[in-house]
């Protein structure tokens, strides 16, 4: 109950920020529209709606990192968190309270992205449900990144690191905008060593109902998600003790 009270508050803080809503929902949809329009004029295979939508939904999650990191960093800078540290809320309550509200928001964003892509020509079948479910571990990875950045950085730094650097890096290294092979072996190797491209390829495979291929990408997502989560929790609790 304690944790839910805190989680509800975090959800309200995120959803009541119009910039969050605008970017979180609006930006991925604008990208879908823009790239679909480009595809209509100059056909590029990777911008076909069935190829593009899974990538855009994964890219949209980088805003979840930004939202959760900003909320945590803001809380850390305010006296509210100090007050809450003096209540019976435990470390686990704080971690789950920050994480759980972002999960339905992220899944909501994913569903809206897929729904919006349907009139643009997205193939509708049961695989879309698997693709949406497949976003859960990817969302956890992005939330963990948010928790880590929010625990380590101040609000200004979060804006720079998550708002600019992470959104761009996760986009470039995910193969959404261009074929990674275009930039040569080293770039491709770096990208494949990171989880972003695996998240996009898993989503693409799930949309096509190719579960064997999807399964080959889940391990890096789980490993990175789990590893970053452990690191994030350790950093948050350490900062809490250092208050």
């Amino acid at each position, binding site marked *: 109950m304690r944790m839910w*009270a805190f989680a509800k508050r975090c959800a*309200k803080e995120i959803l009541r920020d119009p910039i969050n809503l605008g970017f979180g929902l609006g930006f991925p949809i604008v990208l879908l529209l823009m790239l679909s329009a480009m595809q209509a004029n100059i056909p590029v295979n990777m911008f076909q709606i069935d190829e593009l939508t899974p990538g855009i939904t994964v890219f949209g999650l980088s805003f979840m990192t930004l939202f959760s990191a900003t909320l945590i960093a803001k809380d850390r800078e305010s006296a509210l968190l100090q007050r809450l540290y003096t209540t019976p809320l435990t470390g686990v309550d704080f971690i789950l309270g920050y994480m759980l509200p972002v999960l339905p928001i992220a899944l909501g964003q994913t569903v809206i992205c897929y729904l919006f892509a349907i009139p643009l020509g997205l193939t509708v079948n049961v695989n879309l449900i698997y693709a949406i479910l497949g976003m859960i571990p990817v969302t956890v990875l992005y939330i963990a990144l948010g928790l880590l950045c929010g625990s380590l950085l101040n609000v200004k730094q979060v804006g720079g690191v998550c708002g600019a650097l992470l959104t761009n890096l996760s986009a470039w290294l995910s193969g959404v905008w261009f074929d990674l092979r275009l930039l040569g072996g080293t770039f491709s190797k770096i990208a494949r060593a990171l989880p972003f491209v695996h998240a996009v390829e898993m989503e693409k495979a799930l949309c096509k109902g190719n579960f064997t291929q999807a399964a080959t990408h889940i391990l890096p997502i789980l490993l990175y998600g789990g590893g970053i989560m452990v690191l994030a929790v350790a950093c948050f609790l350490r900062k809490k003790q250092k208050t």
Partner: protein
Amino acid sequence: MEAIKTVELTKRYKSLIAVNKLNLEIKQGELFSLLGVNGAGKTTTVKMLTCLTKPSSGDAYVGGYSVTKEPNQVKRLIGVSPQETAVAPNLSVEENLKLLCGIYGFSKEKTKARIRELACQFGLDAVLRKKAGKLSGGWQRRVSIAMALIGEPQILFLDEPTIGLDVLARHELWKCIQELKGKATILLTTHYMEEAERLSDRIGIMKNGILLAVGTAEELKRKAGTDDFEAAFVSIVKEAAV
């Protein structure tokens, strides 16, 4: 039993000793003020007593529980209004109060009753549905203290509750604090002489982390040989060789 007891309580930050071997006893139901200029160690003392920061050495007992060994039990007994206004700005006043009710595990009925009670006590009815972040400093401070009281604490910590408020808001808040006297033990930190003299049962004067004197306002004035409390404070602080 004392509500608060500190034993050689010390906090060091590298070479700086923020609080130095503090020995203090505060009786149940008492309103005790820690008075001192900036950097005296008042807020650090409150942070240690509220389990926000660990003492470097020594210990403190809040409601009989050790802040170093039993912080969870301590947290169930206390309410804290930090120096800066601690409200969730995007939540309404009512939602802020509900948040704390949820954290203390209150039922729906108890939540409603507690909010009604505190809204009445602090005159918050008119602002219950307003966003806390949009209120004036004085109102935010009232909400902050009401939030500290939600859990029906036995011991209430008010860290510089009137800092930055205009004279009218300060007087309004003093009235609220006076109404709390006797209902809970209150530890208040301040650097306003008038506030300490007017509200407190006893006052402790701190300088550079050391508790220089403890007593009622009258006792402190007698000790300094003056009728004026501000003059007594200045005399005690200036004479101290720390």
